[in-house]
C-alpha cells in the first residue's frame, strides 16, 4: 500500500478509535486553521454565514 493510502487508512481509523495523543495533534492543527471548513462543514453554514448544528438542520425539516 502506498504511504498516502496508508495515511488515509490510519486517519480514517482515528475517526473510530480516537487515540488521545493523535487527537491532540489534530486539535492543535484545527485550532490554528479554525476557519478552514470542509465541504461537509460548509453544508451547515446558513445564509448569515453562521454554522448551524446538524441537529438544528435536521429539526428544521420537521417544522
Amino acid at each position, binding site marked *: 500500500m502506498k504511504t498516502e493510502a496508508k495515511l*488515509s487508512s490510519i486517519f480514517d481509523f482515528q475517526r473510530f478509535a480516537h487515540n488521545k495523543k*493523535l487527537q491532540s495533534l489534530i486539535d492543535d492543527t484545527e485550532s490554528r486553521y479554525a476557519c478552514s471548513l470542509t465541504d461537509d462543514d460548509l453544508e451547515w453554514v446558513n445564509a448569515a454565514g453562521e454554522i448551524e448544528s446538524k441537529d438544528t438542520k435536521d429539526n428544521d425539516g420537521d417544522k
Partner: protein
Amino acid sequence: MTAISKNDCESIFKEYRNKIAGYVSSKINNRAEAEDVVSDIFLKICKNIEKFDSAKASLSTWIYTITRNTVYDRLKAARTFRIAELSDNMPSQENVEDNLVSEDMLDKLACMLEKLSQNERDLIILIYYKKLDRKRVADFLGVTYGQLRYLHDKTIQKLEKLLK
C-alpha cells in the same frame, strides 16, 4: 485466547456504541440513515461474533472494519459518496488481514507527527484527515502550490520509514 460468544453482544454494544456512532455520523450526514447504519453494524457484529479470531486482529480492529465497510457499502448504494473519501484500498469484504490498521499505528503516527515541523504536520493532517483540497492547504500554510507539492513529497518520504 478468550472466546467471544453471542452473549457478549450487549457488552460490546455498550463499549463500542459511541465509537461506531461517531464514525458513522462523520460519514453520513442524515441522522435517520446514520442510526439505521449503526443498527445494521451491530446486527452484523452479533451475527458474526463467533467468527472473530483474535489471532488475526484485535476486536477493535475487527469491529472498525465491519463499521467502515458497512458505511462505504451504504454510501456506494446511495451514490451520495464523495470520490475523495473512497480509498483505492477499500476492501469489499470484512477481511481485516489484507488491510490491517491497529491502535499501535495510531501511537506510531502520533510520535512521528510530533517529530515533524509544524507546517509539515499541519499539511499531513489537513490533507489526510481533514481532506482539504491541496490548493486550500497551500493558502492556509501561506505557500505556493508548487512549494506545497515539494513540502508534501518531502514529508511523505519522512513518514515512509514508519509506515512500511
